[in-house]
């Protein structure tokens, strides 16, 4: 993932990890990768990773087991909420743009319905960093 260095990086990691849990990239009940591995994978400071994982524990998306490590929650309601939460920022951005273009709600929703099929993962023109 690419970071926006203008914003605290730990918060961007919280969003990224929340997305991974919400989408099932990190499946429910599975072990969360180690701080060291995440730091190496993302090219980011281990303390920053640690701070983001502590936040996941605070929001109960991850649970620390004393000796076995850190695990993704098995609470499906929380995971569903994480998935929606990750989508919400994108939805907010779209709503703001649609309003700026003077679309009303019906027109904006109709456009989403019409464009829905374009977002298939096999379509390279719509692949984003989120799919990597």
């Amino acid at each position, binding site marked *: 993932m690419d970071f926006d260095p*203008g914003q605290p990086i730990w918060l961007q990691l919280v969003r990224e990890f929340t997305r991974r849990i919400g989408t099932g990239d990190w499946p429910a009940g599975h072990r969360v990768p180690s701080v060291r591995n995440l730091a190496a994978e993302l*090219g*980011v400071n281990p*303390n920053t990773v640690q701070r983001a994982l502590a936040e996941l524990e605070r929001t109960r998306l991850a649970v620390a087991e004393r000796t076995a490590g850190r695990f993704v929650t098995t609470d499906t309601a929380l995971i569903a909420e994480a998935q929606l939460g990750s989508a919400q920022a994108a939805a907010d951005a779209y709503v703001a743009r649609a309003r700026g273009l003077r679309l009303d709600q019906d027109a904006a929703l109709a456009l989403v319905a019409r464009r829905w099929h374009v977002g298939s993962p096999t379509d390279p023109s719509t692949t984003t960093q989120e799919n990597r």
Partner: protein
Amino acid sequence: MSTAPALEIRNLGRRYGPIAALDGLDLTLDAGRIVALFGENGSGKTTLLKIVAGLLSEYTGEALIHGHAPGPESKAMVSFLPDQSFLPDTVSARTAVSMFGDFFADFDAARAFALIAELGIDAHRTLKTLSKGQREKVQLALAMSRRARIYLLDEPISGVDPAAREVILRTILTQYDPGALVVISTHLIADIEAVADAAVFLRAGRVLFAGDADDLRARHGMSLDRLFRTTYQNPVRS
């Protein structure tokens, strides 16, 4: 374990003739962090690192490395990567590894060989046949293969291409012991935004400001790179 900070510097001064390279510098750094050291040319970065590394003995004020003044005890804890080549041209990486093994009791030769291989360098080739980026990687591998408590890396990514920079920074991230302190001096701020978790800005031989990297971003609403540019556009107050 001592509770002294990894690095405690008080009122540190060093002059070169009429020029004050360091002018009453105060700085405390704790272990377990990767600290980015920023500053314009001549702001005192290299002088500071050399004093802490025990290579410059003439200074005023105090520099304590885990409670020890620079000397044999502190040198045993500090791995210093200078900004210039420190290895003879005619030796191979393999020979350089054995030289390091002779010099430093905490040097891990197996780790150095593994790192050199990982960085894609043939250890049998003499250094003069390597590119600048490859030589910098060899020197970094040597410096990171000491089991030191403090690593001082002076411009480890300057003068190499962006791909090599990324490899070098990943190496620093994956090789460092979480209980150690790593100080990286660089003017390539954008490249180490995510690698460092703390930043120190020097100007005219003093600390302009220092702090947690994400706290600085939150407080100023900008990247460290932007903060540096904004800060250093303003003239020095005299």
